[in-house]
């Protein structure tokens, strides 16, 4: 990281502090009881096709190679760990990685969906982040929208022959930003502004989350690059276990 980048991060962090309202929805979880019943149901239903796809692909993978069960479970636990780790931050405000970008790169977006809903449930149970009735909405933003966006960006960048590190960075960055937009949208739909309706409310939530989420996305992007490099250096063999996913096949070949 260059000193200029650090300066930018510091600047953004000061912005975050000065903004005053730094919503502690740190990893963008919508809290229990926050969404009205119809949105609970709607987001839940919206998740079903993605989760079903994830379930079937998981089942197929396991039928082919039962050993992947423990690997995937480890990956799930790892996602939980990542999301509960406090990443270094200048302001001291608590910021967490979502890990969904990294997950999507390693395991593919549909598998991350299934792992994601389990991890989110554990976060609700063990850490009181998120909740049961908001599980659908949270799963959609964090375990479906984010990973799919990250994965898409990664594939596109690879096609365009962008430098691999830049690919990782962009994938994680866009994954995070997309999650942040989707969450803002979910909140905006549930709580439209009195004067300006859903669109005004959407902009408001975007603005409110921006001071924490944008630097966070940048940091997560950088950390994902470091993590992927560490993996490629020390765990070539282990990465090939994950060979059921295209994203990694590319990594391993190179």
């Amino acid at each position: 990281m260059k000193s200029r980048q650090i300066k930018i991060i510091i600047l953004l962090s000061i912005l975050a502090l000065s903004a005053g309202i730094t919503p502690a929805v740190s990893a963008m979880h919508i809290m229990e009881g926050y969404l009205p019943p119809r949105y609970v149901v709607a987001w839940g239903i919206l998740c079903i096709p993605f989760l079903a796809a994830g379930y079937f692909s998981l089942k197929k993978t396991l039928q082919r190679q039962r050993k992947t069960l423990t690997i995937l479970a480890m990956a799930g636990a790892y996602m939980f760990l990542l999301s509960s780790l406090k990443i270094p931050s200048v302001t001291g405000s608590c910021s967490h990685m979502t890990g969904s970008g990294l997950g999507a790169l390693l395991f593919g977006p549909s598998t991350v969906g299934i792992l994601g809903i389990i991890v989110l449930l554990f976060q609700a149970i063990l850490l009181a982040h998120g909740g049961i009735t908001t599980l659908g909405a949270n799963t959609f933003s964090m375990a479906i929208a984010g990973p799919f966006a990250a994965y898409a960006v990664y594939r596109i960048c690879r096609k365009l022959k962008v430098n691999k590190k830049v690919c990782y960075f962009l994938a994680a960055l866009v994954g995070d930003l997309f999650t942040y937009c989707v969450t803002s949208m979910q909140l905006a739909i549930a709580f439209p502004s009195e004067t300006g309706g859903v669109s005004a409310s959407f902009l408001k939530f975007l603005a409110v989350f921006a001071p924490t989420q944008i630097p966070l996305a940048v940091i997560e992007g950088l950390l994902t690059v470091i993590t992927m490099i560490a993996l490629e250096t020390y765990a070539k063999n282990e990465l090939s276990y994950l060979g059921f996913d295209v994203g990694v096949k590319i990594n391993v070949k190179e």
Partner: protein
Amino acid sequence: MKIVKDGIRGSNNMFGHTHDEHFSIDCFAYKSKMNHWNPTYKVFLALVTIIMCLVLNNLFVSLFVIMAMTYLIVVKSGLNMREYISVMSIPFTFLLLATLAVGFDFSRHPAGEINMDLGYFYLITSKRSLLEMFRLFIRSYAAVSALQMMTLTTSSSEIISVLKKMHVPVIVIEMMNMIYRYIFILLELNNKMKKSAHARLGYCDFRTACYSFGSIAGNILVVSLKKAETYYNAMEARCYDGEYSFLQENKKTEGVHIAGASVFVAFLLIIWFATK
């Protein structure tokens, strides 16, 4: 010197709260006096309560739920009041800040009932919005209380067994059981690595801290992938053949509990009807 000190403090506060407290959320369930209650009953009680909070959307119902859940956790489950407040303080601050964002709007024009000039734009709100914000806060807090009632008295493995009874696919159940176990293994691993990184000044400045964090994250992933295979072997060594079946202690639902829950739900409905 000061930076190093800060760094160390940061590591202890990795969950916003102290490390021990994180573990203790899970640990309360094992110590709870409500631990011997039937887990399905507790899960359903929590779910029904949350749903009632949302559907009835009534301030008094929510307030009553908060009181009832506090009673259950402090009196019936035997959790120390101070500990309870400390556990609830995390979701409390989360909720407070999140509801603030709902109650206020930004606008270029002073279009609201109450406007605050902030130079470039106005922070606007109305009495109705503020009231709405308050109701949302109380409703969410009630729902969180009900959720906490469940998690503070029921161990995660039991919650998973309830999901199994609700016919969640076996693969997902297996996965959940394993993930729950692995979470603690990885947390311990992370703790050890973090300590050793601190011991070598791995958090002396922001840049190094980022680098250490990334390397630890990568390293844990490597180790966990290696462990995954050892795990599988250990399971196969004990005749695992693709069907993960766990022994569970049978905990009977008592008639008193069912009656209690019915009275509770009826009471919520009465409050709702009376204050509609």
